């Protein structure tokens, strides 16, 4: 039998329900893994053992009394540090929020807690979710548990690493341009970004509000379906939250892809894609074909324009969203200042790291008078065309299959020196956010050095179930990676 902390969330939840494992034992196992591994991996920024054990007692009582029946009851979770958690420090991996303790809990986390899941702590990330490697955190880098000389990806790198290192049963992340799917790929776990509006953004510290979406990172597709079913909700506190009636995602855990039409975008297999990654992803398509799916190549179009459109829109929204960090109401405040404006400026320059400042400046510029039409509006028009290209694709295919990133996880310290190159690494994930689509990433092999390769499936809006069914089926065919 696997150690308790190595079990999938569903398997652990079942053992807790059947009284084979107590909630306290589940926490013991996760905290032991954290104590053993996290000094090196550094998946967590904050771990709160006392609060977790206190809640475990309460949850255990409710399970014993038959009041808590969710498959996640008693199952320990790690939460990305950009989701507010009442009385638990929430830093966004930034110096500017180094001491911020929220007075409320994000709806997605609250939904998990209502299901009986227990928060272990808060995971490391790129500062304000701006980055693809978890190296821009103000509190130090996270290392990839599969090979600690490499990055875990980002920005939800801490959440992906915590799952991969069995330092939790599952985790929540957020995905603005690939920040759940790409680290899932680099760390060899499963990650899903739902359709925009499926999970409430209330309590998620905003980066690019029209693109941000919370989603699960876990050890299996079954876990993903269960967690997503628990966190999805219509929330009046988020005006972009949708009232969906089809969030019974576990109903899609079926082993069947017969007759499914899969599109392979040629644009996703061109220059810049590592041949080992290409081979593993194409093999996955062959496997699904052998199981009865139809596979066809097509031209998605406009793929290369997704990155400039994304950085224009995301940075514009970020420049506005991050105005609130001013050293007055919470977080860091500079020591020396002459007047109010000096206080604002020094606080922000000292509190934000270089990547965040770079994006705020670009965002302010593209929104400024005289440039708004040329840059921001232009990007929104290109976004409309990208959405249209996906609409055309989904008229023909049930889902799109491709890689999640052009390579496997880069070595630590190799990415930040050239931001442009880092941005290009987001090419297969970013358009999904622009079009608001769901996407799932799961392991489909390893490169010759043993690093995981991620397979990405992209669906039309509201087609999470198609993706879950296909991913579940593929997992069964694939077996252990």
């Amino acid at each position: 039998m696997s150690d308790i902390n190595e079990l999938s969330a569903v398997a652990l939840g079942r053992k807790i329900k059947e009284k084979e494992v107590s909630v306290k034992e589940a926490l013991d196992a996760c905290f032991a893994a954290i104590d053993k591994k996290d000094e090196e991996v550094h998946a967590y920024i904050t771990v709160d053992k006392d609060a977790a054990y206190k809640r475990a007692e309460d949850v255990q009582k409710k399970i014993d009394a038959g009041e808590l029946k969710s498959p996640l009851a008693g199952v320990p979770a790690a939460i990305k540090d950009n989701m507010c958690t009442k009385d638990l420090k929430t830093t966004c991996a930034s110096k500017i929020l180094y001491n911020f303790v929220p007075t409320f809990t994000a709806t997605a986390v609250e939904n998990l807690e209502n299901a009986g899941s227990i928060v272990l702590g808060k995971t490391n990330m790129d500062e304000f979710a701006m980055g693809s490697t978890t190296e821009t955190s103000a509190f130090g880098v996270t290392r990839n548990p599969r090979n600690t000389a490499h990055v875990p990806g980002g920005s939800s790198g801490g959440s992906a690493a915590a799952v991969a290192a069995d330092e939790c049963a599952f985790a929540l992340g957020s995905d603005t341009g690939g920040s759940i799917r790409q680290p899932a790929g680099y760390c060899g776990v499963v990650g899903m970004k739902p359709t925009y509006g499926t999970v409430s953004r209330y309590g998620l510290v905003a980066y690019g509000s029209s693109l941000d979406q919370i989603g699960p990172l876990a050890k299996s597709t079954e876990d993903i379906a269960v967690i997503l079913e628990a966190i999805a909700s219509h929330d009046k506190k988020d005006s972009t939250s949708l009232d969906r009636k089809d969030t019974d995602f576990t109903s899609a855990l079926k082993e069947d892809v017969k007759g499914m039409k899969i599109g392979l975008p040629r644009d996703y297999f061109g220059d810049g894609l590592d041949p080992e990654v290409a081979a593993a992803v194409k093999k996955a398509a062959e496997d699904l074909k052998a199981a009865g799916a139809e596979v066809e190549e097509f031209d998605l179009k406009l793929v290369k324009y997704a990155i400039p459109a994304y950085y224009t829109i995301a940075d514009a929204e970020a420049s506005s969203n991050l105005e609130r960090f001013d050293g007055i109401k919470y977080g860091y405040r500079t020591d020396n200042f002459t007047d109010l404006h000096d206080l604002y400026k020094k606080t922000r320059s000292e509190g934000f790291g270089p990547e965040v400042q770079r994006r705020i400046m670009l965002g302010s510029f593209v929104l400024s008078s005289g440039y708004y039409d040329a840059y921001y509006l232009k990007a929104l028009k290109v976004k409309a065309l990208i959405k249209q290209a996906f609409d055309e694709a989904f008229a023909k295919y049930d889902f799109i299959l491709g890689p999640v990133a052009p390579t496997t996880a880069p070595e630590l310290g190799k990415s930040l020196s050239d931001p442009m190159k880092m941005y290009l690494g987001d090419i297969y994930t970013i358009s999904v956010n622009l079009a608001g689509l769901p996407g799932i990433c799961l392991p489909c092999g390893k490169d010759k050095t043993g690093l995981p390769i991620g397979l990405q499936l992209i669906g039309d809006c509201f087609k999470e179930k198609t993706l879950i069914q296909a991913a579940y089926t593929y997992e069964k065919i694939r077996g252990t990676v």
Partner: protein
Amino acid sequence: MANVISDETIEYVGILSKLKLNEEQKEQAKKDLAQMLDYIDELGEVDTEGVEPMTHIHPEVNCFREDVVTNGDDHEAILKNAPEEKDSAFVVPRTFD
């Protein structure tokens, strides 16, 4: 590099961004911004004649609600996060004489 960012522009961007940049940071910012704008200029290759700008992907807009307070009084907990507070208020530097 096609885009050249002038001193005046970076000064203006600093004001809009509420960031204090030293000379070295200004030079770096000019370079970074120009490089990103060169890249974003590639969007010019896409014909967007007659295309409506798309802000949100779902048709649901304008979620109205009654203007009623539903949250409780959290002011004590909220003020605990303030760098400086006094008499149930945030303290800021003198803003006028």
